[in-house]
């Protein structure tokens, strides 16, 4: 597996996309550092960009990569290696590339101009969201035989989790405003990886406002490590679940 991964990484890390993406992220980070007065503003601006674009890019890139490499994947399958290893080498290569781009593109400016807890959280959330959406993309790719369709599914998932879902939650909150909704909202948020990443950032940036909640449960959720633990746990499930499903399908799929 690691041998396959090694060669997959040789290829992907040298791709034009990897370089462009890293440079793009670095430029974004550098310009934000230049115009912002303090670190919390930097992480705010970076977060706005990250929450929106990193899942999008992860989804589109992973789908494209899968289909561009489909014939090669087929050739690999004709070799004496396990299917799971072929799948994982491709997946890990994509996730590692996307993560390295974030770590370098956002991380280097942080090394230069400083970072705080929220910025480090941001890096971690970026990596996690990349893996989650790469998982969605691989799942969409193994489920269909058509590249356009797979990209369509990936994009739909991105729109759903980035925009539609929050709209629905807001609608629910608004419709049931007279009921105690904290736990419901929290549970709904757990069902969306983008929201989870955002909540982790909120706990860094807006803890003062979050602590305005009534009820001991929320005080505890936000102030203690419990909230972070639960959010991180839910994110891990989000990371593993689509990838695991995709792997299952890949194992049984015809090429």
């Amino acid at each position, binding site marked *: 597996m690691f*041998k*396959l991964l090694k*060669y*997959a990484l*040789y*290829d*992907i890390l*040298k*791709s034009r996309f990897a370089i462009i993406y890293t440079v793009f992220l670095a430029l974004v980070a550098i310009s934000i550092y230049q115009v912002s007065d303090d670190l919390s503003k930097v992480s705010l601006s970076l977060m706005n960009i990250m929450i929106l674009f990193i899942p999008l890019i992860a989804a589109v890139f992973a789908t494209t990569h899968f289909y561009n*490499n*489909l*014939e*090669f994947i*087929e*050739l690999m*399958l*004709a*070799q*004496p*290696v*396990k*299917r799971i290893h072929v799948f994982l080498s491709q997946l890990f290569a994509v996730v590692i590339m996307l993560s390295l781009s974030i770590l370098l593109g956002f991380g280097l400016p942080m090394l230069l101009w400083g970072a705080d807890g929220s910025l480090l959280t941001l890096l971690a959330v970026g990596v996690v969201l990349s893996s989650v959406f790469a998982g969605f993309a691989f799942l969409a790719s193994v489920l269909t035989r058509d590249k356009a369709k797979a990209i369509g599914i990936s994009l739909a998932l991105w729109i759903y989790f980035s925009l539609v879902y929050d709209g629905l939650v807001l609608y629910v909150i608004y419709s049931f405003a007279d009921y105690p909704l904290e736990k419901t909202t929290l549970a709904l948020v757990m069902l969306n990886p983008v929201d989870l990443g955002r909540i982790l950032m909120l706990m860094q940036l807006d803890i003062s406002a979050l602590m305005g909640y009534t009820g001991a449960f929320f005080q505890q959720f936000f102030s203690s490590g419990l909230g972070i633990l639960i959010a991180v746990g839910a994110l891990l499930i989000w990371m593993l679940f689509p990838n695991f499903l995709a792997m299952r399908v890949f194992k*049984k799929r*015809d*090429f």
Partner: protein
Amino acid sequence: MISVKNISKKFGKLQVLKEFNLEFELGNSYALMGPNGSGKTTLIKTILGMVIPDSGDITVGSQSIKGDVRYRKQIGYMPQIGHYPANMKIGQLFSMMKDMRPEIKEYDLELVEAFELDQMKDKSMGTLSGGTRQKVSAALAFLFNPEILILDEPTAGLDPIAVEVLKAKIKKEREEGKLILITSHILSDLEELTNRAIYIYEGEVFFSDTIEELKEITGESKFSPAIAKLMQWTLKKKSSKPLLSHV
């Protein structure tokens, strides 16, 4: 060496292979023929483990294709069109293939040398022409000196010199007692390279025997008209099938 036993495969509603049975023996070279969509590719992919059959089994040597993947070490496969990661270098591709078979230490570098791939080791796959990529595919298929060679349209896209080099190599391997399975649309190549013909029609074996037998049955003295006749028969009726079944 390869026995295909009762393989069935459906893609959606389309039955691609129906209760498919075939035997492939070492020392023979098989021309796998049939119209588009007849199941040739599916058969090859099933043997290679890329397509998973709904029922039945295939054994390679004595190993079933289900489960353990090691049987593929005995197979050299040359795909119809070789797509490789664009930024991977030729040298890296070769070392990756070697890494997948760590216990094989002896390499057959005849084609690598004949195609002068050694001198292009540091070229990225993405920069290569289609023909060169075919050469890489061919060289890889023979690299590990496998017992079985599965060649999917091996001469397509190659320049005439390379075609001759490859054909000579295939003949040589056949004489050494390998099992060779070729699909091609170029009938002259098939006539030259194979001694047995398999004709598949709508997921079933329509003909499988020596080329001499094929010529005798069809009453043609040449390969191409014999195949053409087979095709006509398949279109007319399937009832003639039992007549032809010499298996």
